[in-house]
């Protein structure tokens, strides 16, 4: 199947005092209908900026460059604002981290969804209202006919996030981007929302991009995983393959520092020493070189590693791996 979305060599930079500051550096990925992609990384890895670029909502000062972002045959890099209006919220929708901030506190749930539908489709209020009930039902919102007259403040955090999901579904998008959409929720509500997103993807044939810093959550979403560090993609492949056989020193470090339900102090977590480099200070070399335990002297500080295959559809951008394979990064 042809991918619905194909991102080719996209970079995002901001003008800085001493030249441009690059926050997303040459990132590529593609996604088919009904598939999911998890983008994992820590704060400052550029994962949210990638999402904003896909929705044309990157801050005004941001300079987005790249070969092409192909969306169903159109190049998103070349769109004007008027064209973005026809795609944003309609063909590509986003679910934000904080549903309280994403919803208007002064407008009822019903009217927010009806307004969103009528902004994109020429339908009557009654038709839009019927659609609102339908999407709230899909999002697992209880008794939508009655409770959609509530204001966001009358709902719990989990229900608000369901409203945000219904809002995203309202215009039948082909791609939903969920940016840390479950981070603020309780674990049991988080598990429900993750299951809901997975079910919706399968039922409606949606493409899903799920951004998270939690590798445990990545394994629950499934599909493909893209690990980002300091604006660069460092490892990509099926979620299960990357998490059971991590090859990039950063992915390995991240997994060693994340506690699981099997962790105990007999087998201590090993934090990655140091801190993420400041944006713009990475230069031409490997982004992870200042914290990497297996850095290749004279190579990693000069040039960025290209992709090396670590298995079927599983690639890693690491000089050490390219030179010595799995033994080198152990």
């Amino acid at each position, binding site marked *: 199947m042809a991918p619905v979305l194909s991102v080719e060599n996209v970079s995002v930079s901001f003008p800085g005092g001493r030249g441009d500051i690059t926050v997303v550096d040459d990132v590529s990925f593609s996604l088919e209908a009904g598939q999911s992609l998890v983008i994992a990384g820590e704060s400052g890895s550029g994962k949210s900026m990638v999402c904003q670029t896909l929705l044309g909502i990157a801050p005004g000062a941001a300079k987005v460059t790249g070969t092409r972002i192909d969306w169903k045959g159109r190049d998103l890099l070349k769109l004007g604002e008027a064209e973005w209006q026809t795609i944003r919220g309609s063909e590509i929708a986003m679910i934000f981290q904080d549903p309280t901030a994403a919803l208007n506190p002064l407008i009822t749930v019903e009217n927010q969804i009806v307004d969103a539908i009528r902004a994109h489709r020429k339908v009557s209020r009654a038709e839009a209202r019927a659609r609102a009930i339908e999407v709230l039902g899909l999002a697992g919102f209880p008794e939508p006919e009655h409770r959609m007259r509530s204001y966001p403040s009358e709902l719990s955090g989990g229900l608000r996030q369901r409203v945000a999901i219904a809002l995203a579904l309202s215009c039948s998008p082909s791609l939903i981007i969920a940016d840390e959409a479950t981070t603020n929720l*309780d674990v049991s509500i988080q598990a429900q929302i993750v299951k809901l997103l997975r079910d919706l993807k399968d039922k409606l044939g949606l493409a899903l991009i799920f951004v998270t810093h939690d590798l*445990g959550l990545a394994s629950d979403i499934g599909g493909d995983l893209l690990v980002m560090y300091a604006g660069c993609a460092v490892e990509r492949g099926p979620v299960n393959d990357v998490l059971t056989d991590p090859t990039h020193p950063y992915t390995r470090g991240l997994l060693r520092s*994340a*506690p699981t339900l099997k962790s105990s*102090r007999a087998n201590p977590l090993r934090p990655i020493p140091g801190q993420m480099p400041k944006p713009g200070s990475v230069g031409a070399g490997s982004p992870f070189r200042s914290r990497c335990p297996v850095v290749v002297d004279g190579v990693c500080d000069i040039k960025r590693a290209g992709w090396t295959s670590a298995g079927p559809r599983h690639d890693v951008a690491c000089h050490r791996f390219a030179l010595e394979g799995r033994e080198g990064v152990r």
Partner: protein
Amino acid sequence: MSTLVANRIVKTFNVKRGGKTSELRAVNDVSLTVAPGEIVGLVGESGCGKTTLSRIMIGIETATAGEITYDGRPVKSRADWRDLRRSVQYVFQDPFTALCPTMRIGDALAEPLAIHNICPPAERKARVIRMLEMVGLHADVARRLPNQLSGGQRQRVNLARALMLEPKVLICDEIVSGLDVSVQAQVLALLIELQERLGLSLVFISHDLRVVRYLCSRVLVMYMGEVVEQGAVEAVFDNPQHTYTQALLAAIPDHSRLTAAAS
């Protein structure tokens, strides 16, 4: 021995809704003992009463019924609470709102010493620097303002401020949940080091059971204001008895299940 005990704590709030006042029982008959050098986990979802209980244990809230004892003595008068707060310190969830935005880090760390009149003003600066180094921060941080620090650095500053009085017990409310995984691992390593080096006891409140499993030796599971299950971490996590604990454990996203399935 310096043991902090919460004995049969009840806390009710009056809630007004639709002109009627009703009583909300946030904490219902909960007891908690923190032995010296022990790390006790307190888990449960938002609204289960874990933060309210911890705030009662340091006197930010007053209990409706029940008492707090420290070293076997009940804590009642203002003077008792003042004494308790020299030995028991609280680290808040949000490292940014817990720090005064216009106060330099060095001054923020020296303030507890001034409040409790602990060491001569001339020596305070050296103690601040020593503490910053102990939590893995550079001495330069003393001159900075909170907004010049990253989230992980701010949380270390909060820890450092709580440790300035050399407390025996630290109450930590969700202190790692806002941090990135690699920073979280650094803070957890620091907590373990403090426990081992200073014999510090910790009440560790978290909704992340993975972190609790790693850090704590004993755990209390709270649900709707009550403790539904408690015991050694291994026992509770490997063989949960209460259906709520079972549901909570099943909801944790966990990639170790993958590794288990693969091997």
